[in-house]
């Protein structure tokens, strides 16, 4: 995932640099930056990266889309880019064309469930749905008596209760009460709620890793500017060691996330090995968000605790992203059960298979 030779990432980074400067966004309390940014991303075809041309998208590879999400994480952008990408991807699994405009996916939490009646109507409640309030459509994964379906739903037909996550982004409750979808198709073999959670989890992992890269970057820079006791604080060994640990957490998050992305991009199906990669990425990135974010704040002192400073754009968002598509505890339990069910002698072969 080298940035330089990836046209999708290059395009995105140009747009982010022009329209998503963290300080400008942070100063703009009215949110005027959002519309131009979303428009530029849409014109470049980025929100529908994972949708083939014939289904209305731009047909980028999974790998390029994942790299794009990592870049979005480095800017901590707060527009439904990842959500629309995931929604487009899910719809494409059901061969459903994507409409234009903001989308998000239901459910965004492994324990929530949408069910489908015999007559095709969808019902169920989902918590913590990112950007539901901003979405024009939902891509829904639903369970019926005859299996799993994928549906496109008009957001206007849902009951939405607005909420905010710890990163101050919309994280809403959505209820479908016998809603007739715009389109509904059976999901292909191998696409299940777990698959959606793993895809979403890897998307979030890449965003968290990106946010940590930026936290390392601004923390190192700050430590080289801030003077205390007549020295730059970067000269204190304790500060250096904290930053070395932050570098480790950032590197671990990025390694886990990019490895999982690479695994999915090259996978034929979501087998145990992909499960190990994706679950590990979400667990390890969430841990890194906690440890690494803590250090970034420590290095910044009080200034980093202010709304004026950009640090919180990364730190709080990285913390919030831990909760979407399964928290680290959720995935740890699931991964632990998988490992236990395969047995002790299969643990090393599983790890070494990657």
């Amino acid at each position, binding site marked *: 995932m080298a940035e330089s030779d990836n046209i999708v990432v290059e395009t995105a980074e140009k747009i982010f640099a022009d329209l998503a400067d963290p300080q400008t966004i942070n100063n703009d309390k009215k949110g005027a930056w959002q519309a131009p940014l979303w428009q530029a991303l849409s014109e470049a075809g980025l929100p529908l990266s994972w949708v083939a041309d014939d289904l209305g998208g731009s047909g980028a590879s999974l790998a390029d889309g994942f790299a794009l999400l990592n870049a979005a994480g480095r800017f901590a952008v707060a527009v439904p880019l990842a959500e629309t990408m995931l929604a487009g991807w899910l719809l494409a699994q059901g061969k459903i064309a994507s409409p234009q405009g903001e989308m998000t996916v239901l459910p965004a939490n492994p324990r929530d469930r949408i069910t489908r009646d015999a007559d095709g109507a969808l019902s169920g409640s989902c918590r913590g749905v990112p950007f539901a309030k901003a979405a024009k459509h939902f891509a829904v994964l639903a369970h019926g008596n005859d299996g799993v379906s994928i549906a496109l739903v008009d957001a206007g037909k849902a009951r939405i209760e607005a909420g905010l996550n710890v990163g101050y982004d919309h994280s809403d409750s959505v209820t479908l009460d016998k809603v007739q979808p715009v389109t509904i198709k059976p999901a292909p073999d191998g696409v299940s709620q777990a698959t959606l959670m793993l895809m979403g989890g890897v998307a979030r992992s890449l965003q968290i890793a990106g946010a940590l890269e930026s936290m390392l970057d601004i923390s*190192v820079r700050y430590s080289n500017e801030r003077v205390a006791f007549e020295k730059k604080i970067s000269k204190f060994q304790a500060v*250096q060691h904290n930053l070395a640990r932050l*570098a480790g957490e950032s590197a*671990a998050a990025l390694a886990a996330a990019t*490895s999982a992305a690479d695994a999915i991009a090259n996978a034929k199906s979501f087998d145990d090995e992909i499960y190990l*990669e994706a679950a590990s990425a979400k667990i390890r990135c969430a841990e890194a968000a906690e440890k690494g974010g803590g250090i970034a704040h420590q290095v910044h002192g009080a200034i980093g605790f202010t709304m004026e400073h950009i640090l919180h754009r990364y730190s709080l968002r990285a913390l919030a992203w831990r909760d979407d598509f399964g928290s680290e505890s959720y995935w740890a339990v699931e991964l632990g059960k998988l490992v*236990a069910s395969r047995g002790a002698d299969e643990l090393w072969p599983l790890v070494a298979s*990657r």
Partner: protein
Amino acid sequence: MTAALRFDPIRLPEKCEQLRKEVRAFLAEEAARGTFDASKPNREDTDVPEFCRRVGERGWIGMTWPKKYGGQERSFLERYVVTEEMRVANAPTRRFFVADRQSGPVLLKYAPEHIKMDILPRICKGEVCFAIGMSEPNSGSDLFAAKTRATKTDGGYLINGTKIWTSSAHIADYMIAIFRTSPPTKENRRHGLTQFLVKMKEPGIKVNPIGQITGQYEFNEVVFTDHFIPDDHVLGEVDGAWKQATSELAYERSGPERFLETYYVLTELVRAVGPNPDTRSAEGIGRLVAQLHTMRRMSVSVAGMLQAGKEPVVEASIVKDIGTVWEQQLPHRVRDLAAFVDETATNRETLQRQLDFAIKTAPKLTIQGGTTEVLRGIIARGLGLR
């Protein structure tokens, strides 16, 4: 970005998987013949010369070295696979591993041709054991405070002084050591150290075993009294060993042996909890596996960088830092979870025995090969803070 710390998702090529199968089959054979017991990391007989010879016969020592010195000219990634399989199986590699990992590469770089031709093929056959003489009683982290003197004499040098914490010195045939050939200069306190090849079983060398808190004897004090080293045993530049020694240490870091030393307790815990663990055990195992998987991906990535001819000094230090801290905490996490294991689990005793040993092993993990604080200093330098 300040630090482009990217760990690309290198995958091991197909021929590594074939090799992995061969190594596993070999280790299963050895275990079956009673050479070692994978469930017993604390066994007494960690030095098994015949095992080393058989590993050598397979071509798995010095495998990346040129064929003319007995190597196989295979890739770092292939070597990686052999190292991790040996480590996970708790195979008795002590006799050859230091030579394979670091002494051999140092000789390849700095030894005169006739010495290379003499020693390297024997290393590859698993017949030679090396020790590393860097630390001294007053110079561990601060390598450049080393005082053991090498005084020029006719045709060579006379060595006087003491090395300490020298792993395997009691079984070693050779040591690669740094000695002081001149005082440090005002401008450069690293000046004045020279690297030597020491033949261990010669007059003027006394090896005194030092007991470890695990109950084992693996490191030693090595006292030199007018020990003679011939001129052609100088490795590299006289007075300039600091460059060599620091690059040598890079071989010591980031390999799979840097996070797998206490791995066995995790396998044993999975065995003890059985196929249907309670939630707390499942979560604990899941987290540890996620952390292990992540580190291994980072470590494989560094092996890929080495294969590509890069010098990933900071990346390797990060893997060693995270890796040793992890393997140090691992037995404590497993102990915590083991409290919930059913007393009737058939491997309860094995798990307890392993835990006791791993908990005693843990304190050394962040010390050997350079302490965590020193590594973090290297990482900080890589970040541009020093």
